[in-house]
């Protein structure tokens, strides 16, 4: 069974098609959810809710090649996580934005193991982690992030700056990069 036939079956509310989609992309979506939500059980719940919504709204999805399904699923799962975080996360406005050279930062992350990066990101506070994920990983701008989270652009920039500083200190402390 390939991705297209699985989606075709899932559109007919066929359990085998739905199962194939879930088995193929479930784990990846769980890891994405875990980047936003620290708790594994909550992350799994967000991932399942994302798939549930996907299967309910699958008629609106149009398959357009490899990667389109993952992109669609990822968007849904991230939205689920953000909805969950919006209920409980308080984004504190902090003064002072440290300017970090993005080229230098890019080199640092390129040399660090992905698992260490993941652990460092998960260890960040909710507000820092969310903004860092949306800006540094997903590539959204501050304006988009402010709209998505219902905060000001200044708050988004502040949260990102504090998240980077925290990561830098951690990298130095654990001698991950010298």
């Amino acid at each position, binding site marked *: 069974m390939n991705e297209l036939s699985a989606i075709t079956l899932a559109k007919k509310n066929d359990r085998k098609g739905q199962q194939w989609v879930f088995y193929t992309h*479930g784990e990846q979506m769980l890891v994405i959810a875990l980047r936003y939500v620290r708790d594994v059980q909550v992350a799994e719940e967000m991932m*399942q809710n994302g*798939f549930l919504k996907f299967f309910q709204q699958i008629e609106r999805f149009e398959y357009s090649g490899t990667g389109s399904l993952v992109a669609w699923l990822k968007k849904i799962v991230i939205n689920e996580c953000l909805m969950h975080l919006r209920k409980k996360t308080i984004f504190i406005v902090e003064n002072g934005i440290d300017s970090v050279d993005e080229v230098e930062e*890019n080199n640092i992350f*390129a040399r660090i193991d*992905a698992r260490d990066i993941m652990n460092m990101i998960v260890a960040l506070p909710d507000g820092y982690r969310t903004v860092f994920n949306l800006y540094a990983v*997903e590539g959204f701008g501050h304006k988009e992030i402010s709209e998505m989270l219902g905060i000001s652009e200044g708050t988004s920039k502040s949260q990102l700056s504090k998240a980077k500083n925290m990561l830098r200190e951690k990298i130095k402390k654990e001698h991950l990069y010298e």
Partner: protein
Amino acid sequence: MNNKGEILKDRLDSLSALDAGIVYSRETSWDKLADKMEQKKKHVIWPYYTGMAAALLIVIVFLKINLQQQKNQIPVVQTQSGTKQPTNPASAIIETFQNQANEAREVNDAHIKTASSNTKKSVSSPKAALNGSDVNSNIGFEEPIINCALPIKENFPPAPEEPKFSMRLKHIDHLNDTPISSQWQTPKAGNVRYNSNWVVHTNVLKEQEENEAFKPRKENNSFFNFVSAHNKHAAQQEEESNTNNNLSFQILQIK
């Protein structure tokens, strides 16, 4: 998306659950998801059926109201002589209910009579009378109604009943009547009529032709006793006059 984001994203997306330090069983997770989907279906089905039932109920109520309205609109249109029609259904319904309420109020007003403390109820009873002026006689007891101002809906005394006589009228023979030959022959009652003015024909009663079977009933009845006495008296007078006429006839013949 900037260059840094893409590098980081690719590296993070390449992580498996095990790399991220998660013990993940896709079968268990799928079972949970399947349960959630089943529950969602049930939640979707329930509102569907309840919605259908509610819609059906609304339709039934609407049809009933519509039928009632159609029934009530006919007299309304007739009373308004067809010149004025209700502008909308709501006003028609209100108008119909108002008409019904007014009619009900009129009927109640017609029947309700408030009893004052002075009102007395007299009950008439049948009484046999000889003269017409005595027919409408009262027994003579008056029953005061309760001294209260509450409306009494049924304040009508029972209609006075016509006198009922449970006996047969006395048979009086006319001159041309055929004589009663047996005791089973029914006597004729057509020559006695009771009315406001009593008329009793003066034919002579023949005691020997009376039906013996009716005697006990007649003796117990005052009316029959009276008629019998009256007829006896009339017969005696006629007998006397006949004897007088015979005597005078004999005297004339002697002369």
